[in-house]
């Protein structure tokens, strides 16, 4: 196994998780839980893929994916913010809807090949020992977008005035309202931003890092993993990105054990075809559970919990329950 190649692939897959997780962080910091990430990613994935297939232009595919993601985010936003429906149920509905609709729209696309977004090698940076080839050699352009998005999202949320307003509507909507901030409008905007980023995450899979459409296996739980990462990251974009890269780098390495003939001189029990290989396949999901446990515990210990108004619709003059 070439560890460098695996790490580089991990950075590419990690970018998918990072987009989805940062999108969810925007929505949750504004006080809206969106469990529809998996559905929005699938719709973004299929929209990006089929648009690229029919137009031959992956950039149009990217735009289509982000638009579809944004529209689904808008749907969730209107239903939960303006119509005050339960955020958990609406998010689950969004995942069911996105999964089913994506399978319908993706019918017959499974064997298609598309033009993918360009990959770039950054001169000089790619020559840095160890990190250079992993981070900057022949990576999709979206990977670099991810590199830029992480600090930008952190800066926006923590250091700017609009970011202050974002945090205010998520932590203390009544106080924000009293300051003249349009709570519902701002929440809607960030839920849509979250949807756009989830759509981008889906397109990152199908037209950038591992092109192709494989039905609902295309996303295969990455939307839920992203939501787990948000908890692990305590709603911080930088920690979410690191978690995403780490998770994506470890997973193929674990699954790569299937390709090794011997472990410590003994025959590898995890060879494909051996039933023990299924325990390897469980590990990423066990890892997510472990990560969420750690995240929940450290959040509780440091008293950095979820945004205080997360999940509670805001109605002027009414207290949440």
């Amino acid at each position, binding site marked *: 196994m070439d560890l460098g190649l695996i790490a580089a692939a991990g950075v590419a897959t990690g970018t998918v998780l990072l987009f989805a997780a940062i999108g969810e962080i925007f929505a949750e910091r504004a006080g809206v839980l969106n469990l529809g990430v998996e559905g929005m990613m699938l719709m973004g994935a299929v929209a990006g893929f089929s648009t690229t297939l029919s137009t031959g232009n992956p950039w149009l595919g990217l735009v289509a994916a982000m638009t579809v993601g944004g529209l689904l985010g808008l749907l969730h936003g209107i239903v939960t913010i303006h119509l005050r429906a339960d955020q958990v149920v*609406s998010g689950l509905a969004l995942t*069911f*809807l996105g999964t089913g609709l994506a399978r319908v729209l993706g019918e017959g696309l499974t064997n298609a090949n598309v033009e993918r977004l360009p990959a770039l090698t950054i001169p000089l940076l790619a020559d840095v020992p160890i990190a250079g080839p992993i981070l900057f050699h022949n990576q999709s352009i979206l990977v670099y977008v991810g590199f830029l998005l992480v600090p930008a999202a952190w800066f926006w949320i923590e250091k700017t005035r609009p970011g202050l307003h974002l945090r205010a509507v998520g932590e203390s909507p009544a106080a924000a309202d009293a300051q003249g901030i349009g709570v519902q409008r701002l929440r809607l905007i960030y839920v849509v931003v979250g949807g756009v980023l989830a759509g981008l995450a889906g397109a990152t899979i199908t037209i950038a890092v591992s092109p192709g459409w494989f039905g609902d296996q295309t996303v295969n739980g990455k939307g*839920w993993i992203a939501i787990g990462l948000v908890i692990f990251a305590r709603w911080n974009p930088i920690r979410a990105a690191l978690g995403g890269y780490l998770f994506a780098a470890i997973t193929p390495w674990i699954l790569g054990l299937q390709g090794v003939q011997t472990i410590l001189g003994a025959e590898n029990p995890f060879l494909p075809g051996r039933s*023990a290989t299924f*325990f390897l396949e469980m590990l990423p*999901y066990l890892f997510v559970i472990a990560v969420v446990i750690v995240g*929940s515990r450290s959040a509780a210990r440091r008293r950095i919990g979820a945004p205080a108004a997360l999940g509670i619709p805001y109605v002027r003059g009414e207290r949440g329950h």
Partner: protein
Amino acid sequence: VTIRLEPRLTTPRWLSPVLTLGAIVVALVISGAIIALVGGDPIASYLHILNASFGSVGVLSDTLVKATPLILTGLACALAFRMRLWNIGAEGQFLLGAWGASAVVLFPLVPVGTPGIILIPLMMIAGMVAGGLWGLIPGVLRARLGVNEIITTLMLNYIALFWIQFWVFGAWSESGFQQTRTFPTQAWLPRLSDVADAVPAVRGLPVHLGLIFGLVAAGLLWLFLERSRFGYEIRLIGDSPRAARYAGIDIGRRLVIVFAISGALAGLAGMSEVSGSVHRLQDHISPGYGFTAVIVAYLAKFRPGRVVVAAVLFGALILAGREIQPSGVPAMIQGIILFTLILSDVLVRYRIRIGRGGPAVAVPPPGATPPAVAVPPPGATQQGGG
């Protein structure tokens, strides 16, 4: 122009069922439009679903076979959701239940040739214990460590899938196929067709005893929720956790117990499926019963009796949907139904006012209020809901 939601002070009794029905109709219209857009024929598809699921006694019997696991998993979700506990793990608990029941036969935990009267209850217990333990994990994590149960239950679904594969590809594989050997007939739940010699009309009908399990479980769950102190506490926690805490209810304890019962119900569904319908354990034993159960529970407004009705409807969709092209249509219809149900729920709780200007306040302006004498005591607004 602003859109305002005013809480309804009174809810007419007919409103909720009418809106639920309307939600299903609207969902079918939207789904039909999408089917037409992708080049299908919605009318033909719907007629096919209707015909292939309710068209004759034979297919109706098949529909009930599909509805059986949905009743039990639907009850599992309804119970947890009633407490606002989001158990999305019925799929995994179903699989573990199927595994536990199979283990009794395949290890075997009892001597070969044990009569059904002993074997089947043992399989039921094993299925419920395995499913219940699988449900206990997210329950304990949530109660003790505050870990979000939605993520853990979902991840445990994936893990359960690989657990089943480990057995059916490995130790229990029948000559390399992804399935175990067929169970001996003592491990089969009785079917209607078993009495065909006495009653020729039921020849070939595969409805099995699992349906009775489902109906009995629905009855017991209704008694439990509506007539027991524990059930009352669960409903109180679901409606107002704060009030429950003030009342001194140990929420964590209730939460763990509810999760275990919920898992056991889904586990029984898995047992009933392997013992009553498939007669072996195999990969892909569930076409998503545990996920459809979420929608079944929601459509039933978490009421056990209505779960049975909703399960039959979705059983029909799963049965007949297998032949519908494109293959994602049944899943899509389920998703759209859940969304329109949410919206209908909003209409049950609120009156929508579209008007000009004015702050979006919760208290309606004087002109908009219904006659003051009609204002009922607070408890009365709950009718049709809890």
